[in-house]
């Protein structure tokens, strides 16, 4: 039994014990992030020690310290990849797709027949493996970011559409009647009542789509890309067994995903403060 594995178990049990102690405190003054961040730190430490202690080949699983080192040394490449995949591919597709879905939802909202036809179909299409269309889009729109943008548009369109339509539909009839007694026009009702009350659903759609956009843009690069981009880097570095670089890219993707999701959540909190789900 070597010293690293011994430390591994010590830290495991210690972290466990501390977490149980803290969670029993139940002190409202204690910041909420302490327990999960402690848990995360323990996991990272255990990962590091396990890699050293068991002498795991860095080809299989690099240690967190090695990944951090690689990350800090290749910031320029990571930045180029980030811009290529996430800004040019994912973000443009996300904005286009969600925007188009939102406008479609408002357009078909007036027609009950279209809504009844599109909702089940949209639900069904959301469950399909649309990522599989990536090779087709690469054939149609070329290797650069346009094809990634296109696949993201298709991936986010239907989940967003379904959420928007449902949000616009679920309205307290009393409130609608109230608007009618004010003799509000269709546009006024839409802007002042229906869109605000659909916001929780719209944000739900935006949140779901944020992860989809990330995945779509990266996976589409496996089918062809210029010599930059996160998906390209991941697949080529896997081929060279340089897994520390792969993990660095994953780290970037995870951070970007968290930040984007967080941003949407903050906007949601600011704009839907009146909704029961936002109140404690």
């Amino acid at each position, binding site marked *: 039994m070597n010293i690293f594995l011994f430390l591994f178990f010590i830290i495991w049990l210690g972290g466990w014990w501390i977490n149980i102690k803290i969670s029993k405190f139940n002190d409202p003054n204690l910041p909420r992030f302490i327990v*999960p961040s402690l848990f995360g730190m323990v996991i990272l430490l255990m990962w590091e020690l396990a890699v050293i202690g068991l002498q795991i080949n860095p080809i299989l699983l690099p240690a967190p310290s090695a990944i951090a080192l690689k990350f800090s040394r290749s910031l320029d490449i990571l930045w180029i990849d980030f811009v290529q995949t996430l800004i040019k591919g994912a973000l443009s597709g996300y904005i286009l797709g969600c925007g188009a879905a939102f406008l479609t939802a408002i357009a078909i909202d007036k027609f009950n027949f279209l809504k009844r036809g599109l909702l089940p179909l949209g639900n*069904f299409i959301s469950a399909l493996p649309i990522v599989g269309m990536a090779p087709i889009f690469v054939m149609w729109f070329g290797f650069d970011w346009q094809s990634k943008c296109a696949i993201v548009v298709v991936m986010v369109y239907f989940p967003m559409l379904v959420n928007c339509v449902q949000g616009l539909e679920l309205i307290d009839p009393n409130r609608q009647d109230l608007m009618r007694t004010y003799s509000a026009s269709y546009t006024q009702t839409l802007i002042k009542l229906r869109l605000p009350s659909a916001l929780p659903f719209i944000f739900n759609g935006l949140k779901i789509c944020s992860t989809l956009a990330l995945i779509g843009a990266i996976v589409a690069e496996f089918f062809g890309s210029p010599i930059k981009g996160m998906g390209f880097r991941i697949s080529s570095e896997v081929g060279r067994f340089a897994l520390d670089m792969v993990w660095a890219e994953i780290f970037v993707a995870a951070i970007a995903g968290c930040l984007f999701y967080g941003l949407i959540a903050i906007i949601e909190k600011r704009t839907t403060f009146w909704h029961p789900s936002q109140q404690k």
Partner: protein
Amino acid sequence: MKTSYLANKFIPVSTIVILIGIFWYLVAVPMNSDKVSRQFKNLPTGEHILKCWSLKKPKLPTPHQIITEMVNTIFFKKISSKRSLVYHGWITLQATLAGFFLGTLLGILLALGIVHNKAMDLSVMPWVIASQTIPILAIAPMIIVVMNSVGVTGLLPKAIISMYLSFFPVVVGMVKGLRSPDQIQLDQMKTWSASSNQILWYLRFPSSLPFLFASLKVGVAASLVGAIVGELPSGAIAGLGARMLAGTYYGQTIMIWSALFAAAFIAAFLVFTIDFLQKITLKKMAIIR
């Protein structure tokens, strides 16, 4: 009941499907037009359009071409043959189901832990959410390659990707479901001096079932996506994902589309099966009528 189903669902949905089909044929003309003009010089317009719909390697194949290809590769090839879509579909389905099963199991266990143990609730739940920010599909090739080099090949690596994708909705849904009983109901159980095991079996678990089924539907769809993407990295020779990749290499667009359609059918089949089980179970439990 029957007429309302027709008017509310069947007619609108099939109208939209037909509209999409017409739109598809219309779009196929400009998309394939270049290729037709290159292959055949000076065709009259009518024949030109017909050729657009029946090219061998079109940019956008038409639905009837895809369906013909599917019928050929499903019914007129031996099931064990590598050209049979049934063979590829079965391989993908196996990985999907294995991953889905493991993911559901893991999800339920984690949810039980989270509901019963405060420390786990505080420490694990945020990480379950954080785990989903890692775009696992994006690192699927890495996982497959690494596992292959350790000697784990075949079904398992794909199943692990599927599991990773499908456990999340199950955890979130189950935690919500297990916590859905009211305080009044919990108090009632306490007055009967029920143990926490009994509360789990007689109150929490039954009331979590509607949530579980909703999560299972999301999870099984995610599993299928995971299995397909897991088949993409070079080296994979069987499965719908590998079929799509092969189609890309050889420019066989009809092959890609038929694999996509097959994936869509499998997804529909899986989701409807769970939907069916949900209806039966919830009816037996008198949650829905």
